[in-house]
């Protein structure tokens, strides 16, 4: 959005647009600092807390992180410096290019980390090497262009654009409410609502394709997200409902109430109203009629694979070729169930249903409301009727915290919904951890929780002050 605002400034030469760009750049800078602080934790944590994971899939997972560093981080950090410090030193065009390159760098960085995340949800393009006891990459392009990766990237970045647009609209609405900096606020809303509207459409469409992809590669997550225990054809979608309180996710959770859309779940998952949508119990306990083998069977086969690999390694050590070959054959026959061997009971493999169910609804319902807000704001902007709508300003301001909650709800669906897998079907979260004391992890967790809570408060206070100062004084001094 900054790049668009600055482009308008360069094309129109109107200093008001420069003021607008600079103000939002200040707000961006304050947020960016926290983004940097959280990003580095992720990189360290893969090694410190998930050392088994780092080895087991480091051959595939490390590459996107390295590429991200070389390709994206340097672009972002170099041109962000020109963007912040270059106003009086470089030409207008070079400055504009730097702002665009900062934006491109940030998006490239999102691409690589999301490719890595998508790979954990849908591991493709690799093969297990029994000699090294890890997965090794076979096809870089398959990893990069897997449908999960494409959906994940588009859905996440476009929803982040929505988030940014809501923040801009919310803050601008505060100025309208206070009846100050009217031109600034109106122009910011024009850009943000157009931008938000465009990307909300892409977010919704990629959300739809993500759900279909999930039904295909993570069907348990899909079923949990819908509180869908028994598979059926013509499955309805629960638009909203409340679950009976039951902390034990292994038992079926009924609805206290629900509003259903007939056949919609079948349609959402397989684009056909009569499609059979398997439920949680179909996976957990099997459904021979539909050719679904039970988790218990998969657990047994997984354990067979793990034990066969152990025997294979031992036989190799002892130069027992016939045993090595036999074990390898058993291993390969059961490898697709490898990760299941780390679980002990089918119930271990069911994610927290209620959390996933509610988070999905929070994401979709608020996402829909933001779309309406964008449409209405856009309409009012082009009709120049933005002034005097107090209730709308309050809605827009209230949307700022809500959009963050919505975004987090999306991540909860993605990450809690895939539990207990750290890599779908290959490694459970429990098998991925480092050998460190629980107390160490707890201490570190609280240390970071306290630090980031303090920093969040500091950040909000700084932002509020900069917003109060407004665009006229050009914050930063």
């Amino acid at each position, binding site marked *: 959005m900054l790049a668009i605002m600055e482009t308008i400034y360069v094309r129109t030469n109107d200093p008001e647009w420069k003021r607008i760009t600079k103000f939002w750049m200040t707000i961006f800078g304050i947020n960016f600092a926290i983004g940097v602080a959280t990003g580095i934790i992720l990189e360290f944590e*893969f090694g410190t807390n998930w050392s088994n994971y780092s080895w087991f899939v480091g051959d595939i997972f490390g590459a996107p992180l*390295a590429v991200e560093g070389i390709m994206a981080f340097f672009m972002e950090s170099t041109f962000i410096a020109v963007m912040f410090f270059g106003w009086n030193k470089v030409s207008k065009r070079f400055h504009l290019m730097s702002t665009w390159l900062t934006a491109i760098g940030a998006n490239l960085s999102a691409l690589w980390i999301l490719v890595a995340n998508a790979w954990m949800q849908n591991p493709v393009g690799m093969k297990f090497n029994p000699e090294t*006891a890890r997965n090794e990459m076979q096809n870089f392009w398959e990893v990069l262009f897997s449908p999960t990766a494409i959906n994940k990237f588009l859905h996440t970045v476009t929803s982040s654009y929505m988030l940014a647009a809501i923040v801009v609209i919310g803050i601008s609405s505060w100025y309208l409410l206070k009846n100050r900096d009217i031109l600034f606020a109106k122009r910011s809303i024009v850009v943000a609502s157009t931008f938000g509207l465009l990307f909300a459409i892409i977010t919704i469409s990629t959300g739809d394709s993500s759900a279909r992809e999930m039904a295909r590669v993570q069907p348990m997550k899909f079923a949990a997200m819908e509180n869908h225990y028994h598979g059926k054809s013509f499955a309805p979608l629960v638009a909203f409902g409340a679950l009976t309180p039951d902390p034990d996710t292994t038992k079926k959770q009924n609805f206290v109430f629900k509003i259903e859309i007939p056949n919609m779940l079948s349609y959402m998952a397989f684009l056909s109203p009569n499609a059979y949508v398997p439920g949680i119990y179909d996976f957990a306990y099997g459904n021979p009629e539909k050719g679904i083998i039970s988790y218990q069977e998969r657990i047994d086969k997984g354990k067979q694979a793990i034990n066969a690999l152990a025997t294979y390694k031992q036989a190799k050590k002892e130069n027992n070729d016939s045993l090595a070959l036999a074990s390898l054959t058993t291993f390969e026959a059961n490898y697709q169930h490898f990760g299941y061997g780390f679980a002990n009971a089918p119930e271990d493999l069911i994610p927290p249903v209620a959390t996933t169910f509610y988070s999905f609804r929070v994401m979709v319902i608020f996402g829909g409301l933001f779309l309406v807000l964008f449409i209405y704001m856009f309409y009012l902007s082009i009709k120049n009727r933005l002034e005097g709508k107090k209730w709308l300003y309050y809605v827009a301001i209230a949307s700022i915290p809500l959009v963050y909650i919505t975004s987090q709800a999306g991540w909860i669906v993605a990450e809690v919904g895939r539990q207990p897998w750290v890599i779908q079907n290959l490694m459970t979260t429990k098998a991925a951890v480092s050998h460190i004391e629980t107390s160490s992890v707890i201490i570190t967790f609280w240390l970071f929780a306290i630090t980031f809570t303090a920093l969040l408060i500091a950040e909000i206070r700084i932002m509020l002050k900069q917003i109060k100062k407004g665009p006229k004084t050009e914050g930063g001094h």
Partner: protein
Amino acid sequence: MFENMSMEFLQGYWWILVSLLAALLVFLMFVQGGQTLLYTIGKNEEQKKLIVNALGRKWEFTFTTLVTFGGAFFASFPLFYSTSFGGAYWVWMAILFAFVIQAVSYEFRSKPNNLFGHKTYEIFLFLNGLLGTILIGTAVGTFFTGSAFSVNKMNLLNLVGESNAISQWEGPAHGLEAVLNFTNVALGLAVFFLSRVLASLYFINNIDHEEIVKSSKKQLLINSVAFLVFFLYFLGAILLKDGFAVNPASKVIYLEPYKYLTNFLAMPIVLAIFLLGVVGVLAGIGLTLFKECTKGIWLSGIGTVLAVFGLLLNVGFNNTAYYPAYNTALAPGSPEAIQFMQSSLTIQNSSSSHYTLTAMSYVSLLIPFVLAYIWYAWKSINNEKLSSKELENEHHTY
């Protein structure tokens, strides 16, 4: 191109790249050194503001290099990442914490309503400078002295025990025990003082303020002496100690007397790089102190890159285990001690697959292009020394 290269070539190529990134990082840690000099050189608010802003335009570059170094090391030698990060947990966590608090400090320090006041963020910057340099230096020291860990990939297949972790770290300190070995600490302190030397040189070259330049020269002298003391101690200690060698045929790890000295002699190019680096560092310092030269940062900076590069090439090549497993609790030479050492990491046994190294090698071809645009962008905004006058007209200051 790369797909036809041998595994050895690719492993060596990536060790060189990772070493080069680490070497660049040590040079760029002048930012950290400068942060520890904020109160020593900055006598009043104006001077402090100049120092923070001079460093503030470079900190992200150091940060990015650190993150890229981490990513590249992870991708090319994942077993190191898995073993060291998961084992030496507290060292890496302390380093991480030091960089987390840095990330917000520049942006938040001078902003009104920042909750803690500017002093707290300055203390954050100081802590980052102090801990970041000493801990990273100490951690790299263990590349020569060893750490007490064991690796057994079969643990992953252990379905009955408590932990599936393939690497285990001995003792509860999880890496912090490295400070008990003075050789490690000496490298940590050498990096700390070197970063202050480089920071002083950077201020002399980049800030247009007479008093700051004067104080920087004083600090340059003091920190150069301290750097030399610890650096020479470290160098002497590693050249004279037994090193961790690997038998290329049997892959057995064993202790070899004067291994690191032998490595230098066996690889004259590496020795030349290292010596040229040391001379460069000293020449930059000498010219600034005695010849009124202001460009010493370039000589000492390039010297730092070369010296660190040379040291890391030494510990990675010529059949050497770059991350040795060594347990001081076991009697040297005992079968247990020898067995323990076999978990040591070499560039051969810890690398990614041929395919991954090949794919990443293609990406690495972008590096010269990246360096070129960094150079161009910086030149375009940094063609004059930073002055208070410039800061007055600046929209974005720290």
